[in-house]
């Protein structure tokens, strides 16, 4: 593996989300949190703010520490250093510790963690132990209506389908009216069809409940779809936090660029105004110093192919993806790049092509020297 030091040099940066003006109240504030299990550091110096009513998705490969962040916020783990505030109140830190039951934070577990010895209604009522009997009854009914489980109150969890269990888990977390709901890989136990059907449903329920939500996933489509903002985690560090668009188009690090969406990286050399690569020159928008070696990020949809040529790169593979075809192109240097083209027209494998790249913005990462 080449020793590449990823340094963020793209345009994307801490640019605030356009909607997220400072005037909106901050609900969760994490400051410099550090957590390790034994010698294994899981979270390094994490700082993060979540605003009232916001949906934040945390995305990352498995083992990146995303679930640990939820468990830190919920109070199932205690940070080694740093502080966590909920509604401005310190809940975890050197000076204070609030146990999970005092935080008013609901959680939906990956395997739902439904209580097998209680019925659906009893599960949902579990967090309402401080309610009066009739108020509890009303609230359970309300929440069951909200998630569409009316009539299933007497069932036991094992009598429900996966999708129904998922709704019970959600209803149970929402019933006490938490200011924040944490969802840990909430759809990973459902098959693809059901997932597509339930995702907007869950989003609707959460929006209707006017709650703030943080959810964790390793599925980027899910993260992009549900999150107002997306946080990308890698090896315990928050690599980037921004709107789905920012994360996709202006990835802050090489890791983010690679992890979110498909990308190829083409090496180039910086001259005064341009960055030259084997398929052409790009504008040196960031005024990188001359002579510096960089990698340019190419998304398949940025790459256009023109087959009428006798020489140059040729197509070595085609993958049919419904509305489009994804071509793999072999460059003379041996480097492969990808291009997606409408599937109405097929370019046969072996065809030599001319490549044209149209970038709205150039994203480049310096190679470590």
């Amino acid at each position, binding site marked *: 593996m080449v020793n590449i030091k990823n340094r963020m040099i793209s345009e994307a940066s801490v640019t605030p989300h356009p909607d997220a003006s400072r005037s909106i109240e901050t609900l969760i504030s994490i400051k410099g949190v550090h957590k390790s299990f034994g010698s294994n550091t899981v979270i390094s110096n994490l700082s993060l703010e979540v605003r009232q009513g916001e949906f934040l998705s945390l995305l990352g490969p498995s083992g990146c520490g995303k679930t640990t962040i939820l468990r830190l916020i919920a109070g199932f783990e205690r940070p080694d250093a740093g502080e966590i505030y909920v509604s401005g109140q310190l809940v975890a830190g050197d000076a204070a510790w609030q146990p999970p039951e005092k935080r008013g934070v609901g*959680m939906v577990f990956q395997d739902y963690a439904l209580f097998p010895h209680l019925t659906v209604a009893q599960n949902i009522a579990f967090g309402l132990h401080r309610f009066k009997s009739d108020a509890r009854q009303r609230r359970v009914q309300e929440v069951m209506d909200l998630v569409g489980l009316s009539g299933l109150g007497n069932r036991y969890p094992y009598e429900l389908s996966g999708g129904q269990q998922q709704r019970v888990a959600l209803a149970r977390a929402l019933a006490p009216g938490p200011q924040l709901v944490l969802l840990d890989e909430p759809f990973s136990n459902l098959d693809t069809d059901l997932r597509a059907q339930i995702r907007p449903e869950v989003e609707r329920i959460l929006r209707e409940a006017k709650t703030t939500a943080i959810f964790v996933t390793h599925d980027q489509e899910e993260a992009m779809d549900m999150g107002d903002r997306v946080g990308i985690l890698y090896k315990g560090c928050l690599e980037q936090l921004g709107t789905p668009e920012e994360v996709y188009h202006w990835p802050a690090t090489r890791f983010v660029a690679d992890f979110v969406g498909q990308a190829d990286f083409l090496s180039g050399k910086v001259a005064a105004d341009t960055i030259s690569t084997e398929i052409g020159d790009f504008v040196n928008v960031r005024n990188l110093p001359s002579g510096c070696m960089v990698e340019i990020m190419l998304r398949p949809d940025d790459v256009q192919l023109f087959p009428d040529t006798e020489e140059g790169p040729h197509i070595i593979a085609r993958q049919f993806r419904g509305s489009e075809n994804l071509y793999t192109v072999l460059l003379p240097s041996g480097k492969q790049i990808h291009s997606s083209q409408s599937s109405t027209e097929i370019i046969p494998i072996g065809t030599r092509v001319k490549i044209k790249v149209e970038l709205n913005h150039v994203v480049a990462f310096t190679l470590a020297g």
Partner: protein
Amino acid sequence: MAISSPQKRTDMKTGRRTPISLGPPAFLWVPALFVAVAMLLAPVYLVIRTASAGQDALSLFLRERTALVLVRTVALAISVTAATSAIAIPLAWLTVRTDLPLRKLWSVLTILPLVVPSYVGGFVLVAAFGPRGMLQHLLSGPFGIERLPEIYGFPGALLALTLFSYPYMLLNVRAALAGMDPALEEAARSLGRGPRSTFFHVTLQHLRPAAASGALLVALYTLSDFGAVSLLQFDSFTRQIYVQYQGSFDRTLAAVFSLVLVALTISVLFAEGRVRGKLRYYRSGVGTGRPPMVVSLGRWKWPALFFCGSIVLFSLFIPIAILSYWLVQGLLASIPLQAVWAAALHSALASGLAAIVTVTMALPVAILAVRYSGRLSSLLERISYIGFALPGIVIALSLVFFGIRFATPFYQTLGMLVFAYMVLFLPQAVGSVRSSVMQISPRLEEAARSLGHSPPSVLARITLPLIRNGLLGGAALVFLTVMKELPATLVLSPIGFDTLATEVWNATTEGLFAQAAMPALLLIAVSSGAIVLLLLQEKRAGRVER
């Protein structure tokens, strides 16, 4: 945006204070601490006694014979453990996973030998299979057999201990087998393994942790048993300890021997810990409600029935038949036989209280071991086994020593007796409770916390209802064992608090078998009642959850 440089991270590390984990709440560690202190009383007593040992005692201890006895005892423990596995694992499989005729009945019958005390079982085996016992009498007519081969010594001790302790293993293995996810075996079959290969490579492997904890109970039971080894003339370490008390009233030498037994126990625990340590997260499948595959025995039905039948015959029917014979003989000789209802009541009361107290104390130990696993909690769990491995008389004397000095008002009260039972039999409950806690996902408890419930509330509303079967199983095991307990009962019970076990002892010690038969049969009856109750409870629980 958090992009930390390596430099910064180091600063973080050096700058931060010692990490605090979410420590166990007081309602767990306070009782656990109490348990630890209780368990250490006996070793502390032994050290105090040994400290006053003179040169004589030590030289006596260090003679060649001690080493020989030690080796023989270890050999016996290993053999009994192996023999119980050979009986219990097939029995468990037959009664859980096959279409064995009358499966439910066999499940009950094969567990019942647990209720036969080894001092009764030993007597019965000698009477039945001794060189000139009842079997010889039966054979002498048709075959003219004058003498059967010796039952005494190693083979007899092995036979008796195996027949009356295999249910410890059976209970553990049955539970694991019943809770096993059928998908595991199905996966093996789909990968081209035959039924036999699947059994050895998947099923048996899955049973290893359960078998290991069963084996631990059997091995420690063998180490601490006195009744069977003395009746069957096998010179074990525990018999040596009794001989020391018997002959010289020499508590010092007995203490030295007992400390060696403690050391032996620790090494057994260490061995088991190594097996289990690797398999810590090896859980029985949870979640799937699918019943396991049932294997059709086909023409193997008859050998299987013969196997179950002979085990039950030797370990249950023959003891009951001989006791009944003694009873009838006594009635015919018009020996006044008193019904011992008061003793039965005492036995049930003391055993019931002991079962409740022991399970209550086992709960924090088991929860700490599973949920807050660490060096301290596993040490605590190990310590809880010490009492089970020591002969009852050693525990009794250590409690005499401490009880009369530091708990005078409680000395020789029912409370103290129950405490002694707890010290003696805690591991039986810890094992059962621990494995059921391991079956519950910690996520369930966390979910309850996030819904606003405090740890004690979570324990009461989530954990306890879900481990109900484990609690019941542990309680039943303790109940049955306490029913049989003798040495601690004799020394520590309130005066006049006769139990069925002491009634049996009172009669057998004078050779009054007719008088012994009544309380012994009553003991078996009450204990069997408890087992049947337990099985009914388990069934009901099963209906609610499935």
